């Protein structure tokens, strides 16, 4: 556990020293959301109807924006090989990276989402559900994205490729995330959607670091 904490502290220190990275994610999130009223027209009823979809898609894209950097720096300067040589193996490295990615992108997104939901006119009752669903599913995105980011290390045009790889895997999260918010806005039971999101998170937490570690080993060969 202490090893995990050291890895996590290292990741967070790296992010902090780069400064405005996590603010960039929020800025991208905001810009992507602002595009929609221009694209579909400013009719408040329509915007309120599709608000949850807009917020979810923008959050997915924003989370993906910073995925590539999860391992790229360590891969290029060789620290990944040193991490792989540690007796703990790459599983805790993958888990710590995913957690750090969530703390610097998923968490700010979750906190910022109600503000944007408000300006889009999302139903007030759905606000809490939106935050809860985002809090449950953004870690899944960080975990899945970590596996994708590890797979494209050393590939040509890795960034575009990463989007192609992880987007299909994000779709279940999107379906149940939007489902939860829609259910809350329509006055239906929210619990089933949230429990499925929680199940997806648990599955990803167990399987993804393992797949990420395997992909990192391949990248180090």
């Amino acid at each position: 556990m202490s090893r995990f904490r050291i890895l996590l502290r290292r990741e967070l220190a790296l992010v902090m020293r780069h400064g405005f990275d996590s603010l960039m994610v929020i800025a991208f999130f905001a810009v992507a959301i602002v595009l929609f009223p221009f694209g579909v027209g400013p009719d408040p009823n329509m915007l309120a109807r599709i608000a949850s979809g807009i917020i979810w898609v923008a959050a997915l894209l924003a989370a993906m924006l910073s995925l590539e950097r999860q391992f790229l720096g360590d891969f290029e300067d060789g620290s990944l090989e040193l991490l792989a040589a540690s007796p703990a193996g790459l599983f805790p490295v993958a888990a710590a990276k995913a957690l750090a990615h969530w703390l610097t992108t998923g968490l700010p997104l979750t906190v910022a989402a109600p503000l944007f939901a408000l300006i889009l006119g999302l139903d007030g009752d759905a606000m809490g559900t939106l935050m809860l669903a985002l809090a449950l599913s953004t870690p899944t995105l960080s975990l899945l994205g970590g596996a994708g980011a590890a797979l494209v290390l050393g590939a040509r045009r890795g960034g575009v490729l990463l989007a192609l790889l992880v987007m299909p895997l994000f779709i279940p999260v999107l379906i149940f995330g939007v489902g939860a918010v829609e259910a809350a806005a329509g006055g239906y039971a929210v619990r089933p959607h949230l429990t499925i999101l929680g199940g997806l998170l648990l599955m990803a937490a167990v399987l993804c670091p393992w797949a990420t570690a395997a992909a990192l080993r391949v990248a180090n060969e």
Partner: protein
Amino acid sequence: MGAIERFANPNRFLGLARPCLPWLAAGGLLSLASGLYLALFSSPPDYQQGESVRIMYVHVPAAWMALFCYVAMAAAAGVALVFKHPLADLAARATAPVGAAFTLLALATGSLWGQPMWGTWWVWDARLTSVLVLFFLYLGYLALANAFDDPARGNRAAGILALIGVVNVPIIKFSVEWWNTLHQPASVARLDGPTIHPDMLWPLLLMALAYKLYYLYVLIVRIEGEIAAGKLRALQRRRARTADRTQVNAEARA
């Protein structure tokens, strides 16, 4: 383990696989011809769908193959990762484009059938959406496998991706049962026996057999091609190395 190691030798594999090719081709053509004849001419039109039902004989086996190819690809990738089997990597890589083509065929024929039957080319129903996701998974596999300068590295990374994507397979298979949507549930592979008439079942099964034989034929040809490409790369490397050495020797002498 014995058999796995035995057929890891590409030449032994080719010695066994090459003689199968004419049989696969003959069987495939025969079943395709008889299946198409039964499907297009001698099977009855459906009481609800009319003549449009004949699209099903192309569509349903293609959809089966789309899933079958993905499972085969993931299984081959798993064997390659666990046993470092050199041919399993090639088999996974050779399966991907065939599976992608069958997925596209299933989507296209389904869309052609949907226009007269459902009145729309496309609906965002669970089965259609998950098959579309499957198509993107195939594309991702192909893109990743070809994104590296070292093909072996690409194969291994893409293999891990194929294994991650396996979670989509049960979702596709059971999507029509979990979500009550426009796409009809299974009528052939059921525990209580098929619910379709033998006159329609036979052409369907013949077409499925033809597709499978086609897949095996293409698989062997593609693996042969990959093996040849690997040999070519090794020869080119060796020649580049000897050219280097003769140049160094000549310079040393001069």
